[in-house]
């Protein structure tokens, strides 16, 4: 029997395929394509304390093997989430993880407190790396001391699993990984999007109203893969990779580099059934290679002597 189960901190996941935050709505949108319990986990659209309208369009543009987004963290806010989305999610099986962000420490803490009480949510993913919002956000993710402080305070309030999603827009990711681990993170999500821009040469206009946005998609996979590898070489923490996975082979690159699971985001826009294809691909790969458990592959990349 092929075993795709993985463990992230205290969480046992059916398989290592997790839907990335901001790319699968509140999970419910995916139900037409597969049943939500089929995937390892679903990270919900980033939640803030108050409802947010996000940025004005244009918010997205295509780039070579990727895309830039500057949604501006549009979301219904925690209250509406609890009143309108949660009752629906409660009817589903599936592992739902809350992705949260704030513009102040207090916001983060309040959100964590509230989500601590939601029984169907076993983990929080802390988005401290979103490059889209002018205020807050970006600071938490690039300064180890600030990050450590934030994670530490949330850790005291929040009793379940805490994932910290790192920003890749740094000279070295290791001090930030260390800060999060030292402050008590159960796992690291590596990583968010890369700060980018694009220009329409026909009109001379920036393609994103906010000028800058975050680059995602296959283009960034080699960059994030190196980050995952480096973190794994230096720390013992479970890693959830996120960046440019389109198929099971891309996911395996991350597993071999040291990730215990991987998220899929951008590919969902073109192929909402990608998660099922990836799960089947992983099963087939393990079978052909006569490997029983995907756990046996984590961090097993070979290098030249």
């Amino acid at each position, binding site marked *: 029997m092929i075993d795709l189960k993985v463990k992230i901190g205290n969480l046992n996941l059916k398989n290592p395929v997790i839907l990335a935050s901001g790319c699968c709505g509140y999970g419910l949108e995916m139900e037409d394509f597969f049943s939500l319990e089929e995937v390892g986990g679903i990270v919900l659209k980033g939640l803030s304390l108050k409802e947010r309208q996000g940025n004005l369009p244009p918010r*997205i543009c295509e780039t070579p*093997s990727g895309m830039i987004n500057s949604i501006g963290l549009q979301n219904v806010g925690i209250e509406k989430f609890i009143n309108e989305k949660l009752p629906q999610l409660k009817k589903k099986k599936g592992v739902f993880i809350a992705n949260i962000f704030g513009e102040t420490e207090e916001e983060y803490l309040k959100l964590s407190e509230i989500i601590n009480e939601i029984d169907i949510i076993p983990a929080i993913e802390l988005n401290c790396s979103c490059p889209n919002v002018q205020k807050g956000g970006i600071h938490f993710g690039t300064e180890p001391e600030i990050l450590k402080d934030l994670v530490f305070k949330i850790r005291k309030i929040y009793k379940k699993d805490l994932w910290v999603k790192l920003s890749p827009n740094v000279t070295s990711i290791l001090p930030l990984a260390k800060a999060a681990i030292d402050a008590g993170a159960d796992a690291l999500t590596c990583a968010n999007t890369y700060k980018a821009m694009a220009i329409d040469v026909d009109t001379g206009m920036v393609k994103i109203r906010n000028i800058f946005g975050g680059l995602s998609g296959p283009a960034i996979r080699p960059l994030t893969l190196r980050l995952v590898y480096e973190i794994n070489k230096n720390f013992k923490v479970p890693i959830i990779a996120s960046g440019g996975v389109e198929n099971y082979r891309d996911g395996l690159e991350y597993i071999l580099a040291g990730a215990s699971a991987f998220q899929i985001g951008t590919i969902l826009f073109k*192929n909402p059934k990608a998660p099922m294809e990836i799960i089947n691909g992983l099963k087939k790969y393990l079978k052909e290679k006569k490997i029983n458990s995907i756990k046996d592959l984590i961090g097993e990349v070979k290098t030249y002597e």
Partner: protein
Amino acid sequence: MKNFVKGKIEKIEILSKYYLKLKVLLPYKKFSFQPGQFVMLSDKNSDITFSRPFSVLNWEGNYIEILIKMVGKFTKKISKIRENEEINILGPLGNSFKKEERVALVAGGYGIAPLYFYLKKGNNLKNIYIFYGGKTEKDILLLEALKKLLKKENLFVGTEDGSLGEKGLITDIFQKNLNKIKIEKVYGCGPLPMFKALKEICNREKLDLYVSMDPIMACGYGVCLGCVIPTKNGNICACTEGPIFNSKEILWDKL
């Protein structure tokens, strides 16, 4: 229920320098399309990140037809697709044009697609008028089919260079002929400048205007939040709550 399936290219027809028509066989019959709804297309070969939105031009039984203007990466490559090859289709998506007794349809460019479908599915076309414009005669498509559906008095065609129909902007032609027709609503489908002119006319004439917006879309099913239209009720996704909006709701100056 949205379906994500592989359709089979049954026919590909080059209509003019810029336009082609695809006939795509759907794998089963669960689909049901209303005029104004769209599908997202993607294929294995064109290295696109986003799937691409296209209005349904026609739906019958187990196939749909799509009118495609060749403007960029995907639409130019799709012209090389061969019959029997597969294409990914997600649909049906979005809201639709409500059936009305007395309505003027104003179409520019590929905007004809959903409005043609509207006519096709209508049963009483007596008080339905269409104003269909383009830059040159090359931009006016499906004219024979339209003539079969509508009486001459109900069909207004214009081109900017006068190469077909009346010479001028279709919105001007619409304005000029308003006194000859009796309508309650206007459905618009075309480029932004056309909408802006149309909106002025409809405001002045106190006509309800509904427009089908075409923002850049990545997913088509409400998860990327890339396709929002700024409205009085906030930023609203064109793919799930549009693409058809009441013109009065839209904050035009924020577009």
